[in-house]
C-alpha cells in the first residue's frame, strides 16, 4: 500500500521543490513541512536519490561520422508525398477501368469467377491486416497520451 502523509500534505509539491519550480512561498511551505514530518522526509530523500541516478545516466550517442546528413531540401518530402498520392490515384483508376472492362468483356463465367476468387482473397488478406491494426490500437501503449 502506498504511504501517504499523515497530515495530508500535498505531496505533488515535493517534485516542484526538488526541481526548483516552486514559488518562494510554496518552497518555504515544503521546507518547513519536511523538517517536521519524518514520513515525508524519508520519501522525499528516496525521490531525490532516484532523481540523482536518472540525471547522471548517460546514453550512447552516435559518433560524428555516424550521423546522417541533413536532407538537402525539404521539398523532397513534399515531392515524395505528392508522388504517393498520384500513384494511388493512378492505381485506383486503372483498377476500376480494368474491372469494368473485364466485367463487360467477352470472357466466360469461369474466368470471371477465377478473377473474383483472387480479388476476394486479396480483400480478405487486407481485412485481416486491418483487424490486426484495430486490435493493436485497442491495446495501444500510448492511448492515454494525447497527440
Amino acid at each position, binding site marked *: *500500500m*502506498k504511504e501517504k502523509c499523515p497530515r495530508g500534505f500535498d*505531496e*505533488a*509539491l*515535493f*517534485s*516542484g521543490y526538488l*526541481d526548483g*519550480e516552486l514559488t518562494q512561498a510554496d518552497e518555504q511551505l515544503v521546507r518547513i513541512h519536511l523538517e517536521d514530518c519524518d514520513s515525508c522526509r524519508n*520519501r522525499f530523500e*528516496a*525521490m531525490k536519490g*532516484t*532523481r540523482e*541516478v*536518472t*540525471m*547522471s*545516466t*548517460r*546514453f*550512447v*550517442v*552516435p559518433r560524428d561520422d555516424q*550521423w*546522417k546528413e*541533413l*536532407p*538537402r531540401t*525539404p521539398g523532397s*518530402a*513534399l515531392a515524395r508525398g505528392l508522388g504517393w498520392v498520384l500513384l494511388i490515384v493512378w492505381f485506383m483508376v486503372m483498377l476500376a477501368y480494368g474491372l469494368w472492362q473485364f466485367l463487360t468483356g467477352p470472357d466466360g463465367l469461369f474466368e470471371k469467377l477465377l478473377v473474383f476468387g483472387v480479388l476476394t482473397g486479396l480483400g480478405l488478406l487486407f481485412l485481416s491486416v486491418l483487424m*490486426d491494426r484495430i*486490435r*493493436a*490500437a485497442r*491495446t*495501444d*501503449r*500510448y492511448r*492515454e*497520451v*494525447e*497527440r
Partner: protein
Amino acid sequence: MDRMIAEPLPADREREVVAQAKSGNYAAREALFLAHRRAVYLLALQLLGNPDDAMDVVQETLLRFFVTIGRFKEESPVRPWLMRIARNLSIDIIRKRSPRRIKPISEDEEMILDPPDPGPGPEALASRRQVQRRVWSAVCELKALHREILILRDYQDLSYREIAHVLEIPVGTVMSRLHKARSCLRELIEESPGKGKGNAEREEP
C-alpha cells in the same frame, strides 16, 4: 551535463540563425541541425529504445521543422518545439509497430546506456552502473504517460514550462503528473528483484 546538448547555441545567436534559416539559408539550417540533433536523438532513443528508429526520428523531426519554419516565431526557443515533433513522431512509430514485434524497451539496454564516468574505483563504478540499469529498467516499465514526462524532466532536463509546451498540458498538470510518475517509479524500484510485486503500475507488453 554534456550528455544533453552537444553544440547549443546562445539564445541571441539562435534567434539570428532561425531568421536566416527562415529565409532559406542552408548553412543556417545546418547549424540548427547540428545544435539540436543530439538532444532530439536522445529523446527518441529514450522513448523508442532503438538507435535506428531514433536516427530516423532525428531526420524526420528536422525535416518537418524546416518545412514549417515559416510559421515558427523567432523569439521562441527551438528545442521544446523540436521535442514536441520528435515525441509525436516517436509515438507514431510505436503505434505502427506490429503487436507481435513489441518488446520491452530495456531489452537492448547494452546498446543504449553508456558506462558512467569512472568514479573512485571499479567496484564503485560497477555498483553505480547497476543502480542506473535498475532505475532505467523501472522507467521502461512505467505507463507511457508517466514514462514520457519523467524522460523529459529527468533525462532531458527540460523545465516544467518546456514540458508543458511539449505535451500541450498546463504547468500545474506537469508537476502533479511528474510526482505521480516518480512515486510509481519509486515503487517499481523497491519491488524489483527479490522484493515481489506490489501495487505499482506496470505496462502490459
